[in-house]
């Protein structure tokens, strides 16, 4: 639940009453599996609570599925160039079939974070598409989803597609390998390099974090097996020694359960935030690609304008009767050029703001993740120590018997 800083105009209510503070809070809940086999999908309840005037009523509940979220993301990416659109969890074709409880919960959490980040972003929260997403009925949503997918498929430069499928191609575009046209901005270069390095390092950290989760589970399993075997040996030994083995076995089994619990915590509170960080960086890469494209277009346009200008001058000298037409064209192109420049500048400005916001946000996000990680590991280690220590007096009585 994230509150916003949007100013409310013409409010006559006292600033202290709760309803005067503008808020937009969204939660993604209640995942339900629908459909069968290949057609199976998960639907979520999206609950919006707000007092924004553009919204219908204080509360609205709609049902959405993953592809609806994708629609929203794509729309925002199109409209808000320069803004780092919050990342979505991956569309996994494989896990979809398994739909484990853990997978469903991870996805729900990620979608919840996604929408809330949009709702708390001062630019994005004003999006009409967001409003549609949060309020439209299911049939309308479905129509929009199909419609937009169709349009996007026809688009020649679907950047998200390129970025997802052929990342190297994007980097080529960005690093200027394919096109000679590139911004000569040393600070921006530095940023680009940083973003690429960051993705690599983060991906590695995330990979090891995921493995660490697995290791916790494996250790848990082997402690459980060890415990069972110890109990069996204890039964066989009999007397005091047997009792000692049995107690050891019981403790091992108890600790095994603790480890499984911690593995889950580790996944949700440490590995997922790292994954989220990776996705965020990938989203930035998409924006970088957008910017490169915009820059290229701007340059191409500038060149075209120049050519037209030369041509126009030529025509004017020859007093051709095509001057009028050419002049009209030229003026039109010039306006376009200015528009493109404006757009590009907005993009650059937004990106600069976004970068600051991104860095700060990530420091906070990761700080929280690290704290949870530390707490979880400390909790685990302490319960392991306590469990074993509690066994010692029992072992003493066994050995003196």
């Amino acid at each position, binding site marked *: 639940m994230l509150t916003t800083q949007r100013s409310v105009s013409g409010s006559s209510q006292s600033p202290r009453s709760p309803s005067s503070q503008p808020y937009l809070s969204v939660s993604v809940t209640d995942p339900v599996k629908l459909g069968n086999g290949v057609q199976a999908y998960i639907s979520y309840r999206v609950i919006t609570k707000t007092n924004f005037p553009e919204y219908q009523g204080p509360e609205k509940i709609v049902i959405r599925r993953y592809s609806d979220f994708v629609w929203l993301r794509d729309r925002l990416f199109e409209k808000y160039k320069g803004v780092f659109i919050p990342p979505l969890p991956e569309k996994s074709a494989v896990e979809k079939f398994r739909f484990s409880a853990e997978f469903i919960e991870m996805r729900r959490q990620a979608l919840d974070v996604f929408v809330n980040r949009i709702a708390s972003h001062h630019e994005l929260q004003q999006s009409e598409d967001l409003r549609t997403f949060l309020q439209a009925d299911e049939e309308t949503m479905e129509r929009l989803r199909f419609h937009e997918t169709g349009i996007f498929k026809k688009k020649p430069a679907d950047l998200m597609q390129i970025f997802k499928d052929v990342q190297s191609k994007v980097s080529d575009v960005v690093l200027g390998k394919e096109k000679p046209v590139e911004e000569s901005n040393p600070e921006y270069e530095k940023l680009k390099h940083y973003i690429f390095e960051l993705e690599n390092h983060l991906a590695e950290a995330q990979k090891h974090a995921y493995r660490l989760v697995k290791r916790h589970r494996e*250790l848990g399993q082997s402690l459980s097996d060890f415990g069972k*075997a110890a109990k069996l040996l204890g039964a066989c030994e009999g007397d005091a020694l047997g009792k000692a083995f049995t107690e*050891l076995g019981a403790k091992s089994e108890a600790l095994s359960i603790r480890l499984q619990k911690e593995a889950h915590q580790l996944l949700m509170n440490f590995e997922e935030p790292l994954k989220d960080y990776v996705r965020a960086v990938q989203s930035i890469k998409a924006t970088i690609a957008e910017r490169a494209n915009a820059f290229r277009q701007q340059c191409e346009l500038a060149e075209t304008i120049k050519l037209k200008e030369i041509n126009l001058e030529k025509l004017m000298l020859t007093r051709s009767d095509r001057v009028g037409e050419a002049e009209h064209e030229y003026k039109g192109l010039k306006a376009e050029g200015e528009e493109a420049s404006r757009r590009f500048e907005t993009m650059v400005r937004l990106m600069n703001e976004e970068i600051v916001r991104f860095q700060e946000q990530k420091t906070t996000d990761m700080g929280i993740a690290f704290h949870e990680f530390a707490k979880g590991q400390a909790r685990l280690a302490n319960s392991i*120590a306590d469990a074993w220590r509690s066994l010692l007096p029992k072992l003493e009585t066994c050995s003196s018997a």
Partner: protein
Amino acid sequence: MMKQENHGDEGANLHASQDDMESLVLDEPPPSSNGQSSPSASTSVERHSTTATTSSTSQNFNSILEPPSYADAIFTSFDSSSSNGHENPKQPSYQSDPPTRSEFLKIWVSDPEKELELTNSLVPGGTSYYTYLITTRTNMPEYGGPGSEFTVRRRFKDVVTLSDRLSESYRGFVIPIRPDKSVVESQVMQIEQFVEQRRAALAKYLNKLAVHPTLKKSEELRLFLVVRGKLPLAKSVDMASRMLDGAVRLPRQLTGEAAAVTDVNEAAQPAKGGRDLLRIFRELRQSVVNDWGGVKPVVVEEDKEFIERKEKVAEFEQQLSNLSQQAESLVKAQQDMGETMGELGLAFVKLTKLETEGAMFESQTIRATDMKNVATAAVKASRLYRELNAQTVKHLDKLHEYLGVILAVNSAFSDRSSALLTVQTLSSELVSLQSRIEKLEAAASKIFGGDRSRMRKIEELKETLKVSEDAKSCAVREYERIKENNRSELERVDRERHEDFMGMLKGFVLNQAGYAEKMANAWEKLAEETSAYKRDGN
């Protein structure tokens, strides 16, 4: 990076670490031994624990991380039987036998050398074998009292001979199993590695003999450890016993000698006066084979207690084997955990570097600090896991060791079964001899004046009967003796097992608790360092 450096050291394979353990447990060989001291004896904690690994990986961490502090990371283990490499090998820890405790017999195996086999074959070159320097230090009177020291050179074949002779002389005893002859391994690994493994296994074996209350006083062991030059033990003494599964030293039994200590010459020769008996036994065996149609006789075990005992041991073996396997899995899981934790730490080191170099925002610098703290904690935890594991291996290896003890127990059981089989075979022989004599006598009495050839035959058979009756009473005495050995040895093994296992359990538990506490400290520190980021509502 870290992974590669760890491969040689740890290995989840308990067998490899068994030998590492062995080199851990032994002290430096005494200075009086010739040649250099064994390369592996003095590596102590370094070789096996993380010290070597971490000092090299710390170079990879660069100056961002503090150098590892070993002082707080390494701490002593808590039971008497495991060690950090500075204790005596295999001191018996039970309180019940003070005289044995004050006696010590320590053996070192070192300096493997290659020697050529001197054969009589016409083929030039010939084969080679390795010899090992065996150094003994003891205060036992049988060896000359306090301050006694001996060095000899022995080859593996000598060890096999020693083992065989002990098996013959100490029937019914739970005798430590000697190292494998196993040639297969030598084809897989380098010859150096094989020789080192063998050296370690020999040291372990000999020291096990050295703490066995009865075997440590055996003449066979003494000869092996003391007499220089060719080993003065014949491969096998008791030809008579080979005739009928299990009759041990029957000639000596017949002559009334029950000596456990023999002098060198006697031990080396086939038993005196045994040649007649050999002939008898050969004939007996043949008749047994004839009667039974070539099928080997099976012992009929009637002692209920013994049967129950055996079953219990078999069940115990199964459970122990299972636990030993699970212990191996546990060790592997702990090792993996440590490795992954370390890799995570390294990944965060890289991230720290990235966020530090050319940071554009203060938030980056803050994050760099946070990441550095995470890296430090993770690396520390990784180191602790690996140390924990090294200790765990030492403790849980006891389980594996006792699987070997069970083999020895089964061997003692089969000594007893063999002895019983001898008794039963002789009994049935007596019965058949008796009936043959009766038949002949019955036939002879029908002939007036007697049948000279038959009479002669009857006389012969009666002679054989007498000898066989004596042999049977020997065999019975032997059986009883072995039964008693079984009983007292099982008691000893039981006692030792209780002590060893209790020690193992305590050590394992203390170890786990101790390292968990150290890890908790590291993580609590990180939690403290990141406490500013408490989640909303926490």
